[in-house]
């Protein structure tokens, strides 16, 4: 997987006991980007150049994905958030903004709560949050049948092995409104990333920690965040519910639905998302 972006450099950054793959470029106040399942840092590639005009952009592969380590444990969102904070500290950033999508959005929320002193702005893109009042009701929604499948131990790894492309392509296109948003090579790239030793397990572990994440988040939300929060979702996915959802966790929430879009905001509507994030961070 030799995917590179002009003006960005790749680094392996030690954070605690794991090595995290970071892609860094641009100038200005730092912004860290956190991808979701079944993806890697590459999901941001369309908007990273625009964001880098005004920010130092750090896109990482989460523990368990891409070129980052896949240890046996530590996939709850609090630990993943600790990985991210360690990377930012190692890169010399004490204060930074965070933008997360899908699982990465859950990590971003955990990061904002655990390092209130460090996180200046929080942007959440299309994901339900553990700790949300609707979280448990979600598990009977056929739209997220994969939650239960991914949470099942051991068996999904066996069923997915060798069929990563089938799974990733179905996963992406079932949850896309704009079926032109992903090039065949993008899907192939995510599938190959998932097929790397340990990565299928790593990605699934993000789901197996949901009960812990839910308990943690219920505790965190007792003291809501006061930093600015941007909550965006596709109008065909979580857009209609996402602002109300984040208002359970934070006092200063803006955002709403992105039209003609489902789950893959940075790839389906890159121009709008880049503009919205830049405007939010400038405010």
């Amino acid at each position, binding site marked *: 997987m030799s995917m590179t972006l002009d003006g960005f450099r790749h680094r392996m950054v030690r954070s605690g006991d794991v090595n995290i793959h970071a892609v860094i470029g641009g100038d200005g106040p730092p912004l860290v980007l956190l991808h979701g399942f079944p993806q890697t840092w590459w999901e941001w590639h369309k908007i990273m150049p625009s964001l880098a005009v005004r920010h130092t952009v750090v896109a990482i592969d989460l523990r368990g994905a891409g070129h980052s380590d896949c240890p046996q444990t530590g996939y709850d969102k609090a630990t993943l958030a600790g990985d991210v904070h360690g990377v930012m500290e190692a890169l010399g950033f004490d204060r930074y903004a965070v933008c997360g999508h899908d699982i990465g959005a859950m990590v971003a929320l955990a990061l904002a709560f655990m390092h209130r002193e460090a996180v200046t702005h929080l942007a959440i893109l299309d994901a339900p949050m553990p700790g949300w009042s609707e979280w448990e009701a979600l598990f*009977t929604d056929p739209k997220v*049948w*994969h939650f239960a499948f991914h*949470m099942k131990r051991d*068996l999904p790894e066996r069923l997915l092995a060798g069929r990563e492309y089938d799974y990733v392509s179905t996963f992406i296109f079932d949850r896309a409104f704009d079926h032109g948003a992903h090039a065949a090579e993008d899907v192939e790239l995510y599938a190959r990333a998932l097929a790397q030793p340990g990565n299928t397990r790593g990605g699934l572990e993000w789901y197996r920690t949901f009960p812990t994440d839910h308990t943690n988040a219920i505790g965190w939300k007792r003291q809501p965040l006061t930093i600015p929060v941007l909550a965006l979702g596709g109008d065909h996915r979580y857009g209609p519910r996402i602002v109300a959802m984040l208002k359970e966790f934070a006092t200063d929430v803006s955002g709403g639905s992105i039209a003609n879009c489902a789950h893959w905001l940075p790839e389906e509507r890159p121009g709008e998302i880049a503009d919205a994030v830049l405007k939010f961070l400038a405010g």
Partner: protein
Amino acid sequence: MNTEIDVYESLRTADMRFAYQRARSGEIPIVLLHGWPQTSRAWRRLLPLLSSQCDVVVPDLPGFGYTSKPESGFDKKTIARRVRDLVQALGLSRVALAGHDLGGHVAYAYAAQWPEEVSHFIFIESSLPSFGQEEAMDVSKGGSWHFGFNMAGDISEELVRGREYLFVDHFMRREKVGLYDSESVSTADIEYYARALARPGALRSSFSYYRTLPIDRVDNRTWGQTLLPMPTLAVGAEWGYGGASAQTVRRVASDVQEALIERSGHYIPEERPDELARVILDFLAKSHSTAPLV
């Protein structure tokens, strides 16, 4: 095993070719409906135990085993109609019906639509949409992941294709409700089910039993407004669903007895055939005189 009956007969109905086994030394007609992801083979140990007193009919359900794999009609209302076609084609008008697992859903749909044609209803380790099955599929309340997976669409077939043994073995030996005695079902038995599931159309059909649960939910809600009149027996496994089958069936039937089979997982017909045959024969004998005459 020489007590097992392996001859399958075939019979054509309006829209199906049915494969079934029949053993008739006794009088009481009884139809046994297997569960998922199995075939009529699941009853192999029960057949000889019931046949001295019963006329036992054991079909492969539509989409399973050697029976046709139709393109559509996997809602239990339609499946029950197809099973009734077989029963009538065999010259039977009124039968006792026993269903295990999803076979219990079909048996209920049959008994609810044609109550006067069902002398006894036996519900083994099963649940019903609208009457408790929703909790079994809610993983936030300890339910199982496989409902959502099986219902997801073509991706389910794609992931299991070529891995049928892994899949069946997983279910039959799963930690939560799987076999109590892991050796009560052999590798050869699981291979048999896996091969049946590997035939073209078999995975699609098998998952379609799940994809139609939303339709069943609506049908059951309608039927459930009238309690089943016939004598009903709910059989649970100590290491399976326990008392849940009885709790479900008490919501849809008026005359319910219960039995709990000890030291058995979900697959009672294979794990504890002697105990199961005994509770079924006792139930048929006790309830015989009180059953309304046709």
